């Protein structure tokens, strides 16, 4: 047993690096999935909407932990392949992000007044052009506060990767805590690090929302 030292703090920073890597990868892939889901959910073809909706309900009805375990242990065993830990974890978080971002962006798209579509159509733009040049920018602006809010959720969510042994910030904390037996101190520091990253983002999300509502 040893006391907490600079070595541990360096380990925390390295863990933090991996947390951020996870967040970025999941947000990017999840974002693509989310965009696809948002478009599917607002499609004119009913069965497409239903399937997308069912997928959404399924993923939202499971704890993130279960999703993680399923892709880290379950799927590789089922498929009989070795999956690198970063890949498995990223797949799980990407699906999680995709589903929630999809919902947020769908809400944003539907919040844009229908008259905007009409105006864009009467300018002779194709449906795809209407979406890209007129609707999407507005939808993005409306969804921005909730999207930033979800980013905070994602950062907090990556702490669960520690459960499958992935060494991000929380796992670094668990390792240090086991080595030093100063659990309370270690986890308080870890909490402070998460807070330092999440709090500014939460505040930003709030100021975005205030500005959106005209109260900023």
């Amino acid at each position, binding site marked *: 047993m040893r006391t907490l030292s600079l070595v541990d703090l360096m380990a925390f920073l390295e863990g933090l690096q991996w947390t951020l890597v996870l967040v970025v990868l999941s947000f990017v892939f999840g974002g693509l999935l989310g965009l696809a889901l948002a478009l599917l959910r607002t499609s004119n073809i009913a069965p497409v909407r239903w399937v997308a909706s069912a997928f959404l*309900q*399924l993923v*939202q*009805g*499971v*704890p*993130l*932990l*279960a*999703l993680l*375990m*399923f892709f880290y*242990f*379950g*799927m590789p*065993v*089922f*498929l*009989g392949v070795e999956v690198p830990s970063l890949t498995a974890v990223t797949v799980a978080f990407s699906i999680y992000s995709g589903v929630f971002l999809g919902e947020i962006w769908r809400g944003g798209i539907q919040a844009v007044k229908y008259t905007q579509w009409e105006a864009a159509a009467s300018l002779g733009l194709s449906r795809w052009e209407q979406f890209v040049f007129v609707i999407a920018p507005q939808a993005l602006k409306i969804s921005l506060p909730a999207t930033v809010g979800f980013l*905070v959720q994602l950062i*907090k*969510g990556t*702490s*669960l990767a*520690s*459960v499958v042994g992935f060494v991000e910030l*929380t796992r670094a*904390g668990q390792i240090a*805590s086991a080595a030093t037996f100063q*659990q*309370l101190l270690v*986890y*308080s520091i*870890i*909490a402070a690090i*998460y*807070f330092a990253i*999440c*709090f500014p983002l*939460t505040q930003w999300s709030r100021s975005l929302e205030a500005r959106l509502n005209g109260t900023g």
Partner: protein
Amino acid sequence: MQNLNFQQVLRYQDEFLHGIVNTLEMTAIAALFGLLIGVVGAVLVGNGPRPVRVLIKAYIELIRNTPPLIQLFVIFFIFPSAGIRLAPFPSACVALSVYFGAYAIEIIRSGLASIPKSQVEAGECLGLTRFEVFRYVVLAPALRNIYPSITSQLILLLLGTSVASQIAAEELFHTATFVESRTFRSFEVYALISAIYVALVVASHIIFAVVGAFAFRWPVRR
């Protein structure tokens, strides 16, 4: 591709049932204490002295900007350092109550604020006491307004109990890791509990919808 074998996993159905019951129990306890914290917190945040309001807001920000898993660990390790020995299950209940309470305060506060002042004025002008105004004029409409948010949070709480497995509290997820370690049937085990969680969530949605329709029968503003 490996052959699927659910039979081996389903032999542990008693354990899974036990896990489900514990999960529901944990959710109920955390919901109850969390709502209590929510009500007290919402009232204090609206009407309390400044230091109290600052403290409550700090509490809310702390909970909302740190991972529940870390909160769980901190609370789990706070007790021994204060000399109290608390088992994993109650420890998890405390952590989840604290977690849910922070969200409950926000929801309840906004629910109370959503009632127009004119309603309170009308009640007071009829000669009702402040408590009577709260109980008969504010409460029902406020409950209706917060119902969607609070029920969503309750469902998130249900799913959130899974982190308690990390301090070996006995709930459904913990059961899953136990069965997996015995059978090595990872896919089947996690597919099964995913299905159970989805079923619990769907059942909750239905129950909340029915209760809501029954409790809130007056017509809303078109």
